[in-house]
């Protein structure tokens, strides 16, 4: 196993994690419908660690990241504990939050155009963030902007400072958004499918860049993806979500070699790769639940090949499997 996979030193030392989420619930209730998006999420992230959150559409990956930054819409009901670097994010007031976002924790999105302002140059947008958060002078902020564009390996960085977002290719735009996110040296970077919309040859460039920056800057990263390959390239640990809960968690190597929970097992088996030509692909029958009511059983039971009456009786607890692995299944398969 390469050294990149060894658990981070902070986790080994049992130090306070950078992120600690406990029993996080998020419900969206409108007149037409109610969605129980998160139903008791527990997550830890050590300083300098890369955690990939995997899961299918609607499983609550983005809502988890948004809850962490408290950028959910007003009508969302949130409960539970969120701590970042020992600070209670749920208790933060508006001013504290504004300082927290950007300076402590920053986010990059799938679509850079949602995060970049089309009417300002890339250089101005980065300098803006630096001035606002660090009280830097205009000249200092502009020097920092150039440094950041070089850090994210944008070619001819100096010239690109005066480019508008629409003048950049998709890959360069994504790098520019990463530069904006890194402007105030956050300890925590949240990334919501930042490479999903990129071309294959550009996606791998951005993944390698993120991994390099994370190591250089010692950041903790939570990276949301539905692509197992992306997790294979950059994760130290993975957490798999299903119907608003983490159903399995552990170091990436053993996970890829054989997941414990029947859902990720099915996911891995149904992922098309290499030489599967001529064979019938394994599938997971059915579809995920609608989330209109809070779960009273294992949410995966209706699709699970191992389900038995006890799975329908109560939500299964998280079961420790040793070596930092755990899964929410009463019929957990041996590792």
């Amino acid at each position: 196993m390469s050294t990149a996979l060894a658990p981070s030193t902070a986790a080994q030392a049992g130090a306070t994690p950078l992120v600690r989420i406990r029993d996080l619930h998020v419900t969206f209730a409108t007149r037409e419908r109610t969605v129980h998006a998160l139903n008791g999420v527990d997550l830890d992230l050590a300083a300098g660690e890369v955690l990939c959150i995997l899961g299918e559409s609607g499983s609550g990956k983005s809502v988890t990241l948004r809850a962490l930054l408290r950028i959910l819409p007003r009508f969302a009901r949130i409960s539970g504990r969120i701590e970042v670097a020992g600070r209670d994010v749920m208790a933060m007031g508006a001013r504290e939050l504004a300082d927290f976002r950007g300076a402590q924790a920053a986010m990059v999105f799938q679509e850079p155009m949602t995060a970049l302002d089309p009417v300002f140059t890339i250089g101005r947008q980065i300098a803006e963030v630096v001035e606002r958060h660090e009280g830097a002078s205009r000249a200092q902020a502009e020097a920092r902007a150039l440094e950041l564009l070089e850090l994210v390996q944008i070619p001819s960085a100096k010239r690109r400072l005066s480019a508008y977002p629409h003048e950049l290719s998709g890959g360069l735009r994504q790098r520019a958004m990463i530069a904006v996110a890194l402007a105030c040296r956050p300890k925590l970077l949240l990334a919501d499918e930042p490479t999903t919309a990129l071309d294959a040859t550009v996606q791998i460039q951005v993944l390698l860049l993120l991994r390099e920056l994370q190591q250089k800057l010692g950041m903790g990263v939570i990276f949301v993806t539905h692509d197992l390959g992306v997790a294979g390239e950059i994760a130290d640990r993975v957490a798999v979500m299903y119907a608003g809960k983490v159903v399995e968690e552990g170091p990436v190597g053993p996970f890829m070699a054989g997941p414990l929970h029947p859902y990720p097992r099915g996911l891995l088996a149904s992922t098309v790769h290499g030489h599967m030509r001529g064979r019938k692909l394994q599938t997971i029958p059915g579809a995920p639940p609608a989330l209109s009511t809070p779960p009273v059983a294992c949410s995966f039971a209706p699709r699970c090949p191992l389900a038995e009456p006890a799975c329908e009786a109560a939500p299964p607890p998280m079961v420790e499997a040793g070596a930092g692995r755990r899964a929410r299944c009463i019929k957990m398969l041996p590792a």
Partner: protein
Amino acid sequence: MEQIQDLGGPAQPLLALQGLIKHFPIKGGLFGRTVAKVRAVDGVSFSVCKGETLGIVGESGCGKSTTARLLMRLMEPDAGSMIFDGQAVGEPRAGGISLRDYRRQVQMVFQDSYASLNPRLPIEDSIAFGPLVHGTPREEARQRARELLAAVGLSPQQFARRYPHELSGGQRQRVNIARALALRPRMVILDEPVSALDKSVEAQVLNLLVELKEQFGLTYVFISHDLNVVQFISDRVLVMYLGEVVEIGPVEAIYDRPAHPYTRALLASRPSMDPARRRLAPPLTGDPPNPVNPPSGCRFRTRCAFAEEVCARSKPTLAAVEGGHLAACHMADPASGHSRAGREVAAA
């Protein structure tokens, strides 16, 4: 309504394209004059054999969807010819086939499962719509629609009267496939048909496509940027770069012995699920260039590690690497003057 009979026999390509070109004008200035052109498809020739699945891969903007639209004749090519089972498409007076007859035999499934269904029609009516327009009696068209729903794995009792918004993405894509099959086409063009689906659902739809092809005697053109999916489903694979074909061949040849440096880089860019085999350096740097102003000579030369003077000067043509496996690279042509020409390319 039955599938139209084979004409030229199994050896004749179902569809043969020659020199297909489509440029999109970019309007600008005060008078909306054409200031430049996007060379979306720029001299593409290939054929689709009867009963095969031809996969088309390439990065965003390389012209895959434009090629698909040209194949469907949803837009007119600027130049080039199309021959369907021996008949020139759109030239009925010269012994060819009319666009109307052609369009019945070639159907398409898109990535966006919402866009091609009428939100105000129950799905059964959406499926029956094509045959109705082509003169099938109402009861028969509806009966067909129900059979097709069953064929794509949706119980007609449960689903026939549902509206598109009452279905999941995977279910909607099944309806789109049923709708495409309603006119009994011989060829189906699938443009990123599983790209919007979750992995577990993607596998269901891929299995379904394989079954239906067998059951209805279909020929597929399957477009995707997912190299693993294309490897799974295709018999032959075509690789596009900036509006041109750079390599085409049997799936094993393309994946095991890629000859074009771009194909090799594309394959090497696939993320690996095995964390012990992580990449240390990206196979390619930079983004694909702008199709408004493609590089001279070989369009890949600005990102190619092997580019030499000849690559800027002359455009490589598709040449045989081995039987049925062709690549457009000067290294594959012993007479090109490239210093690596004729050497074992795969070892590079």
